[in-house]
């Protein structure tokens, strides 16, 4: 009895250690987020949300950066998502195992691991310099689209893979051709997974700061962008600018900016989860 008692306690000690390893970082993060809310809550006001950056911390606002981020989100999605889903369909439904296929696969998994700042260097040379987009919204969106693309391909492939093969065969048996089986059966069935993956990836892409800083996006933009060729700012860049200043008043602005940015991320994540549950239920 004593022996087995000894083993049980060893086992449960280890289980506790494992739980702590998971719980401590989560607790730390929640503490940090709570601390940021405490630092920035007082700065959050209507004038902060609707104002433009200013040299005076107390009257500075987030509007151009907020609108910039929303516009980036739509442009980037528009550019990367159709191509990403197309590539995923090709790899899952059409490609036969070959050297070229495995080369494309290796490529995509490698691109997903390329540091975001390297995409910034590519965007700086290709879009800003060679294609003369300048430091425009277009250049930023194109750069982020390249970064988003491998994430969309990988998550869409996973979603396509969840459709059982028998569903495709049933469609063929009814006289459907390959494209029809994809359009009428495979895509609708995998749609919840694809959409969830896209929203999470887009959230991650528009939260990026480094590529935008590298292509030279400005943080002192006092107007809301009017076209895709305008100079622009984005929330992560604006937060970076505020946190880099020595004055404590600007740090409060940064904290308030972090609250808004995290709220946008939370909304996107909630939409993704809601879509997964909602569409998943409808299909069943």
């Amino acid at each position, binding site marked *: 009895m004593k022996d087995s008692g000894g*083993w049980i306690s*060893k*086992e449960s000690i*280890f289980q506790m250690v*494992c739980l*702590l*390893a*998971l719980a401590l*970082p989560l607790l730390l*993060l929640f503490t*940090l987020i709570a*601390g*940021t809310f405490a*630092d920035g809550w007082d700065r959050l006001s209507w004038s902060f949300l609707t104002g433009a950056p200013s040299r005076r911390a107390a009257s500075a606002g987030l509007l151009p950066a907020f609108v910039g981020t929303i516009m980036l989100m739509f442009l980037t999605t528009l550019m990367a998502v159709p*191509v990403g889903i*197309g*590539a995923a369909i*090709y790899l899952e439904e*059409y490609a036969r195992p070959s050297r070229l296929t495995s080369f*494309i696969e*290796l490529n*995509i*998994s*490698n*691109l997903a*691991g*390329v*540091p975001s*700042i*390297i995409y*910034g*260097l*590519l965007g*700086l*040379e*290709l879009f800003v310099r060679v294609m003369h987009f300048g430091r425009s919204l277009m250049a930023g969106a194109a750069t982020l689209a390249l970064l988003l*693309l*491998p994430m969309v*391909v990988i998550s869409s492939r996973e979603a396509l893979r969840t459709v059982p093969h028998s569903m495709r065969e049933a469609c063929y048996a009814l006289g459907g051709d*390959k*494209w029809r089986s994809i359009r009428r059966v495979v895509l609708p069935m995998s749609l919840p997974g694809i959409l969830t993956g896209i929203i*999470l990836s887009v*959230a*991650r892409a528009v*939260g*990026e*700061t*480094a590529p935008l*800083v*590298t*292509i030279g996006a400005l943080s002192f933009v006092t107007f809301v962008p009017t076209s895709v060729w305008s100079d622009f700012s984005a929330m*992560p860049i604006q*937060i*970076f600018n505020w*946190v880099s200043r020595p004055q404590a008043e600007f740090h409060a602005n940064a904290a308030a900016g*972090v609250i808004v*940015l995290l709220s946008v*991320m939370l909304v996107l*994540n909630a939409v993704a*989860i809601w879509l997964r549950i909602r569409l998943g239920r409808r299909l069943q």
Partner: protein
Amino acid sequence: MPVSEAAVQLDQARPISERLIKYVLFACGAISIATTAGIIFVLLFETIAFFRRVSFGQFFLDTQWTPLFADKHFGIWPLVAGTFLTSGIAIVTAVPLGLLAALYLSEYAKAGLRRVLKPMLEILAGIPTVVYGYFALMMVTPFLQHLVPGLSGFNALGAGLVMGVMILPIIASLSEDAIYSVPANLREAAYALGATKLSTTFQVVLPSAFSGIGAAVILGISRALGETMIVAIAAGQQPVFTLDPRVPIETMTAYIVQVSLGDTPNGTLEYQTIFAVGSLLFAFTFLLNIVAHRLRKRMAGGA
């Protein structure tokens, strides 16, 4: 016979449109190859231009990095040391915690709890890095200054620790996939031989999941090397050749940010330095990603 005529037309039309669709979809996949080619071409193009003006010796044998000063030195080692110092601190933090967290999720957590915790980890992995940078500079470093004497406002320690928290979900999630995919009959065989759960975990499950865990750790290292905002905000902008975690340093990524924030006209030597530094960073992460890809393939194929 209009009906059969139509059928014949359809039959002829189908393969063509089917083939067209296939080519369009293939083109979508091929864009990934173009992106990689674009990255390599751009980096090489500017790096070659850089090495026309600066010798390999100046780059690899000097220990001072001062391309923005009047007295220019191009020794890359201070930036490499800064990068490996912050990444090292992050890995030392994240690997043990991430692995234990993965073991908890796969071996101990009930299915319901697992279904809550895993998406939570994924959401945490999606917090923008600029936010982690804010945490490091504004909260973690001031707290650490109470514990570590002589810790300056910008330092590798705070940035590295926060970076560890940032990559922890990636390491935990990928390791958990690897541990979860260990076949149940291996565990059952160990139990049948009278092994306890703990010794099964250490002597059967972890060794079988080794490739996958290795891939997770390597991807974590690669992520840490390329991480930019945390170190740009919290680790400083002083390229010092040191492994002292208490003083301001500069990483390769932070240097690229520093130059990008200034107004550097293209074609200048300063402009080319960020591509030379970027090439080295790309080479490091590329090698690590290839190794991780191989390990994951082995995990999927073997065992």
